[in-house]
């Protein structure tokens, strides 16, 4: 008995010592400056662009926000899961993985569990084709089955978030930035497409205001993709965003109050700053531009 316990302690301890020694060994013979350079190289693999990164909110976060709008679920708006076999190259697979993650977020927010299940299945399948299923833990899929059986939409929404995070981190970790950039772009385009299909233009409405907010996310999307623009697919896709960006760029800026911060019950309130307004004509231009790009992605027509 004691021997087994001893082995349990000693073997991992020895392993740790070996690892520690391996890490220490170059230090003893090397100039400290070289060590710094080595660690810099290591660091550059993790952080890029001089420690500056831009993050893009996920489709889940966006749909969580628009729950305040009276939205009815419409399956026809989403990309048909049967289209998956049309995506045979990495570019269309990555883009449409993004499209399907947004569809899943929408289904999990507004649809029923059966609808969500279809999109979980297509994401798992697409994950296989993109070799990212190592990231998508089987236990998550077991939980998904349980939540579908239990008709638990809140849990499905959380799991769809987890699936996105796992895929995102896995691609980042495995230095597959270009794929990640295309996935994020696909998810963003589909989210905006769904939003523009949800209702008609109404000046000052919550929906239009949420669409205008995407002006900021587009800026971050550009910054995020810029990190991988040496990849021809990423560069090409960045260019396809131009008609959408032009609409956002031409929104009228309404100067607001001076910036102010107040503190109320331990919560800081940020106030002030500009707003933007969108005319019906701009809304229709945006809707067409998004529709055009989304159709290209879904039909894999580049």
């Amino acid at each position, binding site marked *: 008995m004691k021997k087994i*316990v001893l082995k349990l302690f000693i073997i991992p301890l020895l392993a740790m010592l070996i690892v520690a020694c391996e890490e220490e060994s170059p230090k003893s013979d090397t100039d400290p400056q070289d060590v710094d350079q080595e660690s810099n190289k290591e660091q550059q693999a993790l952080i890029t662009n001089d420690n500056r990164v831009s*993050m893009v909110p996920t489709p889940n*976060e966006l749909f969580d926000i628009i729950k305040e709008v009276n939205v009815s679920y419409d399956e026809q708006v989403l990309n048909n899961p049967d289209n998956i076999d049309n995506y045979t190259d990495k570019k269309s697979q990555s883009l449409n993985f993004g499209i399907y993650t947004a569809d899943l977020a929408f289904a999990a927010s507004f649809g029923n569990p059966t609808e969500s299940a279809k999109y979980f299945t297509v994401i798992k399948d697409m994950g296989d084709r993109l070799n990212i299923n190592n990231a998508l833990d089987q236990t998550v899929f077991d939980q998904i089955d349980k939540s579908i059986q239990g008709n638990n939409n809140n849990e499905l929404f959380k799991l769809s978030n987890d699936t996105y995070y796992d895929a995102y*981190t896995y691609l980042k970790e495995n230095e597959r930035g270009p794929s990640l950039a295309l996935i994020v772009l696909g998810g963003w385009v589909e989210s905006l497409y769904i939003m523009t299909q949800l209702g008609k233009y109404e000046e000052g409405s919550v929906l239009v205001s949420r669409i205008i907010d995407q002006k900021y996310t587009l800026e971050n999307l550009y910054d995020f993709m810029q990190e991988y623009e040496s990849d021809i697919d990423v560069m090409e896709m960045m*260019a396809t965003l131009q008609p959408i960006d032009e609409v956002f760029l031409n929104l009228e800026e309404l100067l607001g109050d001076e910036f102010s911060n107040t503190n109320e019950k331990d919560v800081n309130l940020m106030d002030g700053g500009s707003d933007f307004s969108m005319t019906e004509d701009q809304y229709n231009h945006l809707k067409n531009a998004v529709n055009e790009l989304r159709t290209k992605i879904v039909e894999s027509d580049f």
Partner: protein
Amino acid sequence: MIKLIKPFLLFFIPLAPLFIHAQDCHHVVKYCEHSNREGYVFNMQSSSGAFIQGDTAEVSIIVYKGMEYKISFCSPSNPELNGNFQFKIVELITKGKWVETTTYTNEIEYDEYGYEIGEQKVPHTIKKRVYEKQPVVRFDNSEHENAQDFVFQSNKTRKLVVKVYIPEVPSEEYDMSGETYSCVGLLIEHQKGVKTGFGR
């Protein structure tokens, strides 16, 4: 069997952050202390990275109107950093313009009969958006008793930049390991709406 596993777990659980340190920093934010009990959910704009002590990092995020956000930092691998992060939340006033850039690809050139005659450089001109930014500081923890988190709501959707300085804190373990970077997590959490009542 449980008796066998128990000492093993007791030995390894406290060492978990060291293993994170030894591997990589990609998941480090998952090990930060989350505020689920206060109703917050993990926001996917959270990020993890490896930093040299003394470094400054910037993360640009989007915060939506109608949400309450909580921003905090942690370093499970270098606990001596916890409580010592210096950070600012900056809002950028953005103005954009288009800039044209040209890149070249090599493509095979054919004559009028369809025979290869060599390679030619084909220019691809792409219009790119370039943004000019002016910063406005929204929060500076050095002006708030070195607070290690920031809870806020915004009256409109905004683009913010979280600037964090990774402090240089001497540590015996740090000096002995010879490792020059620390894993740091920027944890962003959110929940809906305004919280009112006796709890606040």
